[in-house]
């Protein structure tokens, strides 16, 4: 009846995929929500990129910085740095997801079978390459747009327009280089050492671009030296860049094609499981789950050096147990100095983003990045809050009441948010974009308020990674609303600071207002949150 036997020959993957496609019953709202998400993404992306792309139509033809109206060299350099940083960030993100990954179900049912490994992996490899080509093309054109006002346009190309050939060659160059880098990530996938090296290379490129942009913003001579190089570009150099990029991408594609049959199943399975959960979390904007996954990936397989717990209860018998509980996040963060370093470097983002998008370092873009950065910094201290939101077993085991636990756990995000805001505002003041030296003090006052938003993000019911996720998109709006609610809370908590940054100047009364608003928001949130705990 049940017999051991060998199959006569391998079936075709296309037939298997066709079998699955024909039988899977996708409800209409699956297609609707996918279509809606795509349309929304295109609208948002277009809105974000319309202004930078507008520079392609800006005044040109004079070369160098002279005669450029409406764009400063520092803005072009900051913009170019952001494009390079975005490319490096996308590559690091792709590495975290695989970059070659199957759907979790495909990984479970098609990988450890007699199907030809190359056939199984061909489609995800093509998808990876396709996404890289599309993203690289956009980044290539974006880089050209950043340099746009400083390009020396060829005679007869029209007075104010970058030639179409340059656009095309930039897109090809960007697509080629980005695809080559992404496929290099696929080649490194089975080798942990090479993965680390690629990640490090991405980080180095990102930091170098950031440092260059800051130097360009601080010293005009640096930004002018870079924009003068933009003026030297011509059709020949664009063509050369595109040819080199295409050759690099083609070589990488050939190497990947040769490697596909030998890609270890264990590596693909691990990447696929991670990518599946990450995409599920991203689809529902579930930031806590994304950080949950990132933490699990970081700590898996590591040997931790156990150290004694500090005797916090001895100093404050009443609140001590709560701080003992909260110390888990302090220790965790202490074991991850790279996170603190990344947070410190990211404090440069408000100045760069503002300069690149609007040409001025104070404005709504700077304020938005300040808020997002402070909330992100705060969430780095909420891992334990996130973990036991749905299951307060540890808190109960230690006999700590919910109110004290929540208050103790808000201390670290408050400090992180305050420190990050102070550093970011200090850098804005240092580069001369915000007048005066008291801005960091304002950041320190706003930090505790922003911590309320960070704690709320951590506590808004992270879905269990083992769950399949909500069945229908009708359950999605509440998820989106909880995120919007957290952002709104952060916005209210830091409103006086953000308003001052938007305006570009600060009054003495702002400090008092900020302190009061932060205290009211944090205190109010903790009181309300404890009731629902």
């Amino acid at each position, binding site marked *: *009846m*049940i*017999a*051991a*036997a*060998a*199959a*006569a*020959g*391998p*079936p075709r993957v296309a*037939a*298997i995929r066709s*079998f*699955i496609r024909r*039988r*899977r*019953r*996708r409800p209409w709202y699956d297609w609707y929500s996918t279509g809606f998400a795509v349309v929304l993404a295109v609208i948002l992306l277009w809105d974000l990129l319309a202004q930078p792309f507008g520079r392609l139509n800006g005044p040109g033809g004079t070369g160098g910085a002279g005669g450029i109206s409406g764009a400063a060299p520092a803005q072009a350099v900051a913009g170019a740095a952001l494009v390079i940083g975005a490319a490096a960030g996308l590559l690091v993100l792709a590495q975290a997801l695989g970059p070659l990954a199957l*759907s*979790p*179900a495909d*990984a*479970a*049912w*098609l990988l*450890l*079978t*007699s*199907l*030809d*490994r190359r056939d199984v992996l061909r489609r995800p490899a093509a998808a990876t390459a396709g996404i890289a080509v599309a993203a690289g093309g956009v980044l290539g054109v974006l880089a050209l747009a950043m340099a746009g006002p400083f390009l020396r346009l060829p005679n007869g190309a029209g007075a104010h327009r970058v030639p179409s050939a340059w656009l095309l060659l930039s897109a090809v160059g960007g697509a080629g280089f980005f695809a080559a880098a992404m496929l290099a990530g696929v080649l490194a996938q089975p080798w942990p050492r090479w993965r680390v090296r690629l990640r490090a290379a991405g980080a180095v490129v990102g930091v170098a671009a950031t440092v260059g942009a800051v130097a360009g913003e601080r010293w005009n001579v640096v930004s002018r030296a870079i924009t003068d190089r933009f003026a030297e570009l011509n059709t020949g150099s664009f063509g050369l860049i595109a040819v080199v990029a295409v050759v690099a991408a083609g070589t990488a594609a050939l190497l990947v094609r040769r490697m596909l*049959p*030998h890609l*270890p*199943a*264990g590596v693909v*399975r691990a990447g696929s*499981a991670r990518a*599946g959960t990450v995409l599920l979390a991203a689809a529902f904007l579930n930031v806590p789950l994304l950080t949950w996954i990132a933490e699990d990936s970081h700590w898996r*397989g*590591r*040997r931790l050096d156990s150290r004694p717990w500090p005797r916090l209860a001895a100093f404050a018998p009443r609140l001590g147990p709560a701080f003992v509980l909260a110390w888990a996040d302090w220790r965790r963060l202490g074991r991850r100095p790279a996170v603190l370093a990344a947070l410190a470097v990211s404090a440069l983002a408000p100045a760069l983003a503002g300069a690149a998008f609007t040409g001025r370092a104070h404005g709504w873009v700077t304020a938005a990045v300040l808020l997002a950065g402070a909330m992100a910094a705060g969430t780095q201290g909420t891992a334990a809050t996130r973990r036991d939101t749905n299951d307060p077993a540890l808190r109960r085991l230690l006999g700590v009441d919910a109110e004290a636990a929540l208050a103790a756990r808000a201390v670290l995000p408050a400090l992180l948010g305050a420190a990050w805001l102070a550093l970011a505002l200090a850098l804005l003041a240092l580069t001369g974009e915000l007048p005066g030296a008291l801005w960091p003090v304002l950041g320190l006052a706003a930090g505790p308020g922003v911590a309320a938003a960070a704690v709320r993000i951590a506590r808004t019911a992270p879905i269990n990674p083992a769950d*399949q996720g909500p069945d229908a998109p009708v359950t999605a709006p509440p998820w989106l609303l909880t995120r919007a609610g957290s952002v709104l809370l952060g916005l209210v908590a830091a409103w006086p600071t953000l308003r001052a940054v938007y305006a570009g100047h600060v009054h003495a009364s702002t400090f008092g207002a900020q302190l009061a608003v932060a205290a009211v928001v944090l205190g109010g949130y903790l009181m309300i949150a404890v009731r629902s705990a």
Partner: protein
Amino acid sequence: MRVGHSSFVVLEDVDLTVAGGEIVAVTGVNGAGKSTLLSCLAGLHRPMAGTVAVLGGPPRDDAAFWRAVALVADEPTWYPGLSLHEHLELVRLTHEPVRGWCLPTDELIEVFGLAGRADANPTDLSSGQRQRLSLAAALTRPSRLLLLDEPEQSLDPAFRKDLAGLLREYAGHGGTVVMATHDLDFAAAAGARLMLIADGRMTRPGPGP
């Protein structure tokens, strides 16, 4: 062989030979390295030292290898929108063409006690039923070696006995089974040779108290 992860060694000086048509049950405390051993045999984990030979060669983790080896470890991710019956059909399809060696899908579903649930979404089944489905998926395809990581988990005692019978039948047709288990009665019912992993080393367990 010696097997470990980046920061610690799990198995030290492990030596195991399994003959064709034999059933071997590996037991040991939690974290002893039973699952790691199965991963090595499946070629999903490389030993730090020593060699692994499966069906006469190193586990190559390619189509030819997986044509002969079936692995049941963690619960697989189920295709959303596909029924229990369709999952089994899918497995058979990935191993076609096969010359008369196994039960039709409907009969297999009955053997595994899943009749009446054939059209169910696997995620709607109980954990024990999902485990039965995983095992049925492994046995509905041709193989010469079955690697099972705690196949008895979530199964009721009656079906454990049935499963032991199915494994004996599989071995009777020349198939080889290596499984990790905590259920010594199940291992005995399957007629398995019992091996114990303790302190990273593999031994034959002594007589019980």
